[in-house]
């Protein structure tokens, strides 16, 4: 009996520990933000998705410099792009959001709608001179929640040697694009490569032709969008674009272009470092063609915005806002744009930047009129983007005509 008593105690302890463990763990998690707001802030936590070099260091250095300027050290965590949103959702339910949070711009409205972010006007951060597309990407219900120091978009890359050999000049209209692509297709080589895969990337690559022709992302079964989808369908049907486009990522498209298996491609400036690793490859960049000469090429805006989450600690938030403001300063925009092959967000910087970086001139020009994916749609973007790529896939596989594919998708 004595022995029973003796064993009983460790056991009950163990049971108590087991039951208490989750409480203890959750307690730990919440402790991070409970510091009183009068204490001076020494450290600022940052979460972003630049987990690959060289961007990881570029952003890291900029953060450290901005931290020093604000008198804080930076505790930075980089997560893979795909897991950022689930991380943010998890952190917002456990109230452990970082002081500074980076978001991909189409996700901003989704997160701002939850109430997890603080409007930047609360911290008197200036939004003057930012390109309208950049501001609309960072705005939710008339308040700016995030600012991007640099942004990007997509354009038409072409292989100078292949085009010269075939006597083709870079196309500016859809008809020119179709005939150029057809002329450049022979043997193993396709005229053009783009990505039409069943993800938001497929939608993103289609937006330039859809928007330039006046297509409306809210209501996709219109004449304008149908014409744009007809172009994509014709290019695949004619064999100028491989039907593999239905499964390619943007990186695959770049590989095809680099291997000389595509004379032209739709892609973004983030591919430039890879392209430049192959010195023999001579390429140029032009705007994505429009249906009729005279139409404006409207490109979709890409890039990441920096936000200040509602952590409940005003002093920390103020420091975090200083860091965000510093990241978006003119000097930082120019410096980051140059090393990362992106475009400064402020239109006032565009001219100097374009003249200093001729490779990015076309992209710089496009940013002035670029549109945010969430500008019209807001939180509706994921749903509507799904409909758009579904319609593209339906039309490109020949399951339905572009008009029917769009009608079906819109009704879904």
């Amino acid at each position, binding site marked *: 009996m004595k022995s029973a008593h003796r064993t009983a105690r460790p056991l009950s302890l163990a*049971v108590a520990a087991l039951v208490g463990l989750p409480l203890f763990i959750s307690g730990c998690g919440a402790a991070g933000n409970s510091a009183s707001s009068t204490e001076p802030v020494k450290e600022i936590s940052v979460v972003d998705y630049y987990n690959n070099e060289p961007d990881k260091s570029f952003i890291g250095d900029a953060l450290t410099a901005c931290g020093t300027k604000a008198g804080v050290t930076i505790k930075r965590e980089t997560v893979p792009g795909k897991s950022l949103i689930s991380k943010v959702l998890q952190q917002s339910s456990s109230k452990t959001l970082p002081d500074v949070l980076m978001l991909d711009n189409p996700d901003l409205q989704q997160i701002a709608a939850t109430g997890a972010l603080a409007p930047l006007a609360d911290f008197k951060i200036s939004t003057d001179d930012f390109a309208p597309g950049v501001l609309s990407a960072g705005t939710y219900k008339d308040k700016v929640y995030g600012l991007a120091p640099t942004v990007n978009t997509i354009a038409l890359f072409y292989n100078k040697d292949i085009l010269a050999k075939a006597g083709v000049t870079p196309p500016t209209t859809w008809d020119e694009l179709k005939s150029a692509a057809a002329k450049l297709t022979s043997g193993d080589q396709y005229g053009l490569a783009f990505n039409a895969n069943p993800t938001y990337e497929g939608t993103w690559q289609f937006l330039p032709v859809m928007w330039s022709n006046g297509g409306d992302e809210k209501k996709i079964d219109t004449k304008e969008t149908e014409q744009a989808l007809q172009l994509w369908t014709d290019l695949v049907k004619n064999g100028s674009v491989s039907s593999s486009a239905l499964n390619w990522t943007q990186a695959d498209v770049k590989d095809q272009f680099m291997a000389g298996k595509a004379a032209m491609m739709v892609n973004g400036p983030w591919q430039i470092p890879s392209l430049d690793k192959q010195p023999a490859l001579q390429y140029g960049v032009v705007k994505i063609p429009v249906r009729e000469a005279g139409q404006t090429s409207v490109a979709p805006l890409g890039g990441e915005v920096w936000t200040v989450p509602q952590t409940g600690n005003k002093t920390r938030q103020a420091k975090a806002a200083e860091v965000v403001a510093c990241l978006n300063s003119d000097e930082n925009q120019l410096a980051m744009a140059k090393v990362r092959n992106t475009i400064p967000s402020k239109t006032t910087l565009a001219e100097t930047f374009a003249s200093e970086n001729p490779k990015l001139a076309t992209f710089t020009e496009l940013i002035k009129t670029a549109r945010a994916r969430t500008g019209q749609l807001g939180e509706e973007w994921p749903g509507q983007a799904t409909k758009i790529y579904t319609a593209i896939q339906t039309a490109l596989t020949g399951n339905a005509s572009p008009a029917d594919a769009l009608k079906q998708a819109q009704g879904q």
Partner: protein
Amino acid sequence: MSMTTDLSHTAAGPSAGKSSRKHGRANTSGTEAQSPRRRSRQRRERIFQWLFLVPAVVYMALFFGYPVAKNVVMSFQDYTTSTFFTGEAPWVGLANYATVLSSSLFSTSLLNTALFTLGSILGQFVIGLALAIFFQRKFPLNGILRSLLLLPWLLPLIVSSAVWRWILDKDSGALNRFLGALGIIDTGIPWLTSTSLALIAVVGVNIWIGIPFNLTILYGGLQEIPDELYEAGSLDGATGWRAFRHITWPMLRPVVSVVLVLGVVYTLKVLDIILGLTNGGPANSTQTIATQSYALSFNEFKFGEGAALGNVLVIISLVFAVLYLRASRRAVDE
């Protein structure tokens, strides 16, 4: 099987204790003063018995009960991204189920899930069984070859799907190059980008991944069949196909039912291979209930609808699990 043995253990535990206690009481019943003490000891023993169950119960509740219950609750709520921050998820009753089940995509996904599961299981099982029987023979390098066949099982699924995506590419894929070099085809076959071929290609890759599992379990089952049966059978003229039909198959049946039921349950919920190969495309021709549920929750942030579709999948799996439990119970009864 393990379920029934577990139950019998816990059932045996208390009853054994009771009988020993009865014996104890019979022996010491003469002394009246000791009886309250005895009773408290009995109670303590009972408490101990329950305490031994606690870790298992807590584990089950925490890691199986909670997620399942949470998923069921979620499927009746309008669960969005804001829910994570505010904790508010309005009750919407069966609206999520209605949306998901009435969607035009549901019938496509359901059909694809059925074809994917059926095709995968059939291929994996037949090839796995054939290989298992083949490896029963004694020949040099048997062990090495058999362990090499386990490779697909050891590779992370995301790696295998990336490699297969490259192999099956229309223009520069290894498979089309190979077929082209043999003169079988002129132009590349769009394995992953044709609506009529993509599902077949995905099933093929899943068969490749599933063969090791089937091979290993069935090989183990074959080893259990005593050689004497085959010797006796051969005396009566049962060799080759007839030996398989009348000795191997009946003896292997319990193992076969395990392999098939586990296979069905594993295959129903396959996600990473399809996401890696086609992402449900082209034009939803490889969209299954699992991929659709994933897309709803994590691409479109409609967590309630995703949960509802997930529960539909759980119910389908449950049907097979119940069939399996009934079959194994019958086997025990016999």
